[in-house]
């Protein structure tokens, strides 16, 4: 029944795509119907996913598609149900949001139609990835998802950076896809067939299991944006239309996570703790690298994209812990870390899509995501500003929001390292936890910067000055996600309980102790060891807000018609404020740039600039920082140059002279005859 629901979801997503194609040229109904079908698809996948998660039962079927001897196997179990629910959770608001967001494209049907069509395909591809129960269908779905999202990334292809990003994205996706294919190939090489049941039964020796794991890590890590394979992500996610950016950053990276879990925890099954160390190290490195780069970005959407890298690092850090514990036979702790990682993935899906939607609303209204041209938007876009603030609080992992709950669980899992026998592991896990702490703190800094520069202070450009509140559907899409962030943060026990079923189905162990004390208390190991009551914390924060409201009400009655007096800012008596006196995005992160210098490749660019009218006659200089990904220079540029050099070498054989060609033919013949004798 659940499986049928999930298949219906795929059908609806495809229908959305089809409707978009059929209604080409009638943007109004095209937009409405396509997003309606997409929303229904999201709802269906949400329902099916939650149902599968709550029953914990796996359902399977086959479709008469695929190879003649390998029909498409579909299966919905708790793990895929969970991720299906994530798709639903994000695509539903995305559909609501997208309906309003895409209105700007109404007068450009040549852009709108592909955008809508590929959005449907993209969502269908993601849903199919989760249902696929054989390597062939999985790969089809996987690449369908990549390809469709590639076209979405390239939506604004008149801009060079969009083209570059799309190119890089598809290239890396393809390379990653090949690695995944090879990892399935290793499994299938030892097993009987390509359906997951055979792969699961495949008897691997440790060496090949390691190879398979490494390939899966590389392949899925590319999509998840693990350093150093992340290079495409900060390029691709920001340039897509914002409702798609939300899906890209919120959901597609989760598909990578799903694939990794499916292959490593399910198909390989017998994990080795050393893999855990690798994943832990890569996860921690990714988290730190991601947040450091996020911190210095000056474009809001790019900042969010780097923050996705960071959060995927955190999730993989959790998975690494799970692998270490499982590899050491600590199934319970493995399940704890596993659940924590999944929880963080769910949270990230919510708050990152919320933030991208918020950034999209800003882009929509202020036509700008460059932080140095924003400012003061909270006064002009109060709803968007408020919802974006909730997103920032969540992603900065502040209690009682959801980001905190999951990171807290990861910390708790890490702190159980004392129960391991190996001293090296006991020492390295807390170090990873410290990196996580640093990451969390830097992330808070990042989002103070993002919010403070974009929404607070004064407008830095006419666009920002004249921005107005976004449409209802844009706000509604964000509001759904913001509520979700809050709900997941305040009621973590319910989530952990549900995720326990995933871990039970996959690892054979759930977390009875975590929720043993009811919905109010989250006690991952035991109440004495650690407990967290998000509802009470939330109540405390609410009390503070209530106090403010009470004071406001009382004073309002007292002072009757007199509003709070507004005066010019004091600013140590420096005189009138101008927007240009504010701290900018670059200056905000300057101290951290100083401290961590060497992490980035920063080009400072200072040029004489035109003086602006009305600002005196001082000498003007424009100062700009360009942050380049260090790994691009260190790894990718040489790689690309190497390919070109190899191509140049090889090209030497094609001289253009017929005699040379004949000579090749001649020599080949002689060589062959000599060989064959």
């Amino acid at each position, binding site marked *: 029944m659940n499986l049928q629901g999930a298949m219906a979801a795929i059908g609806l997503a495809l229908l959305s795509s089809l409707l978009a194609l059929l209604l080409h040229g009638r943007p109004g109904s095209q937009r409405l119907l396509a997003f309606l079908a997409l929303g229904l698809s999201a709802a269906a996948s949400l329902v099916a996913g939650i149902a599968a998660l709550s029953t914990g039962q796996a359902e399977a079927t086959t479709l008469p598609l695929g190879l003649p001897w390998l029909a498409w196997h579909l299966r919905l179990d708790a793990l895929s149900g969970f991720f299906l629910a994530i798709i639903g959770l994000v695509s539903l608001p995305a559909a609501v949001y997208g309906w309003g967001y895409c209105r700007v494209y109404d007068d450009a049907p040549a852009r709108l139609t592909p955008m809508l069509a590929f959005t449907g395909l993209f969502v269908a591809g993601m849903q199919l990835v989760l249902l696929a129960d054989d390597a062939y269908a999985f790969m089809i779905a996987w690449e369908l998802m990549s390809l469709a999202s590639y076209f979405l990334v390239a939506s604004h292809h008149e801009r060079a950076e969009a083209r570059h990003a799309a190119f890089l994205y598809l290239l890396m996706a393809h390379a990653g896809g090949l690695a995944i294919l090879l990892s399935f190939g290793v499994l299938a090489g030892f097993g009987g067939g390509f359906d997951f049941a055979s792969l699961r039964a495949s008897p691997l020796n440790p060496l090949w299991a390691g190879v398979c794991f490494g390939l899966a890590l590389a392949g899925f890590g590319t999509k998840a944006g693990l350093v150093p394979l992340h290079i495409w992500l900060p390029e691709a996610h920001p340039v897509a239309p914002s409702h798609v950016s939300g899906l890209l950053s919120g959901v597609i990276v989760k598909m990578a996570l799903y694939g990794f879990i499916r292959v490593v925890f399910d198909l390989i099954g017998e994990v080795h703790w050393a893999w855990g160390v690798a994943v832990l190290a890569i996860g921690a490195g990714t988290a730190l690298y991601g947040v450091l780069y996020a911190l210095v970005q000056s474009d809001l959407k790019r900042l969010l994209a780097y923050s996705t890298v960071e959060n995927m690092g955190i999730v993989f850090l959790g998975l690494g812990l799970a692998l270490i514990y499982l590899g050491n036979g600590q199934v319970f702790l493995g399940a704890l870390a596993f659940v924590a990682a999944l929880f963080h993935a769910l949270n990230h899906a919510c708050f990152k899509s919320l933030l991208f939607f918020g950034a999209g609303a800003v882009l929509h209204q202020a036509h700008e995501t460059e932080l140095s041209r924003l400012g003061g938007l909270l006064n002009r876009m109060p709803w968007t500003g408020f919802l974006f603030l909730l997103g920032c609080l969540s992603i900065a992992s502040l209690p009682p929001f959801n980001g905190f709950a999951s990171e807290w669980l990861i910390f708790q899992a890490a702190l159980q390292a004392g*129960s391991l026998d190996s001293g090296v592991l006991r020492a390295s896990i807390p170090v990873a936890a*410290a990196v996580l*702490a640093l990451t969390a703190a830097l992330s808070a800094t990042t989002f*103070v910067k993002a919010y403070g520069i974009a929404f*607070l202070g004064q407008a830095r450009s006419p666009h920002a000055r004249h921005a107005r509140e976004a449409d209802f559907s844009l706000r509604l899409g964000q509001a759904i996600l913001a509520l979700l962030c809050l709900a997941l943060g305040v009621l973590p026990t319910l989530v952990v309980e549900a995720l326990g079923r995933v871990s039970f189905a996959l690892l054979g162990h759930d977390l009875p102790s975590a929720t043993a004390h009811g919905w109010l208390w989250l006690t991952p190991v035991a109440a*004495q060891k*650690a407990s967290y009551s998000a509802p009470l914390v939330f109540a405390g924060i609410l009390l503070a*807000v209530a106090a403010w409201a009470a004071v406001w009400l009382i004073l309002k009655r007292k002072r009757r018609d007199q509003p709070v007096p507004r005066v010019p800012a004091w600013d140590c008596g420096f005189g009138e404020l101008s927007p240009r006196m504010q701290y900018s995005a670059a200056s905000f992160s300057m101290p951290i740039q100083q*401290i961590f210098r060497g992490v980035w490749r920063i080009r400072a660019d200072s040029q004489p600039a035109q003086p602006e009218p009305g600002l005196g006659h001082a000498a003007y200089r424009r100062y700009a920082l360009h942050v380049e990904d260090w790994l691009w220079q260190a790894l990718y540029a040489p790689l690309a140059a190497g390919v070109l050099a190899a191509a140049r070498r090889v090209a030497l054989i094609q001289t253009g002279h017929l005699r040379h060609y004949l000579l090749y033919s001649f020599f080949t013949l002689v060589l062959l005859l000599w060989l064959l004798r």
Partner: protein
Amino acid sequence: MAASLVAAAPLDAAAPLAMNAAGWLLALAQTALFVAAAPLFAGWIKRVKCWLQNRQPPPLAQGYRDLRRLFAKRVRLADQASVVFRIAPYLVFGATILAAAVTPFLSVNLPTAAITDAIALTGFFAFARFFLALAGMDIGTAFGGMGSSREMTLSALAEPAMLMALFTVAMVASSTNLATVITSIETQMVMTRPSLWFAAFGFLLVAVAETGRIPVDNPATHLELTMIHEAMILEYGGRHLGMLEWAAQLKLLVYAVLAINIFNPWGIAHEDSASALGLAIAAMAGKLLVLGIVLAVTETLQAKLRLFRVPVFLMLAFTLALGGMLSFIILEAG
């Protein structure tokens, strides 16, 4: 091992979560005392410093007078101030009170302590800081932005060090619940462990940075280019400023109490009897007096660091905490 872990948790594992009205009332009272004592402790430090500097100290109650005056004053807002600016003092103050509420002050038998653990405690401070930094940027002055930027930078470095110190303690006690940690450290007489010494020093350094004391920040300065915390609250006045000042004092006290109770917990009450609580009050008061003196002396002897020297200071704290962790793992565990 996993099985033993679970089994190690006794059947009355729910005890810390037990809900009884008396316990909650007592917890409320303790929190109230905590909040009330904050200006006093700040005043004590100021007094000791004045003595050391041969100045005439203000009366001990000066802190309360200042607050009363501020709360009575009328609020004036800058033209550009948004709602974030207005709500931030409440949230900052509220979060700090929450932090105080979950910190065992006099008794470990504290139902509110179960709401969060050591990690979430840093979360509350982070929450407060987040809004404070936003408020600093809200008006759009250069000073506010500067303060926020510096505050966030330093806290980003301080937080891992702080957590590392707490992790060391948590691993020693195999719990992050503050009440359990304190009980465990007190009953096991673990103060002889080198790891805890490392952790304690690390924690103290972080505490200095986090509470904005010399050599990281100077709460008394209003010299534009050196201030951090003060730069963020430049534009505040009236009850808003009062709340922020009070929150800062409270934060200082929470850190002081944490340092005392985690690393030197003797005298803390284990039951809610009047005698135990009385002893606890006396012990705590005595320890706070001593700590205040120590703090004042160090502040007097030291000069404020340049901003870009502070990371080294924090790195030292982190290294100390890490050393504590490693020495626990290498020397003491297993």
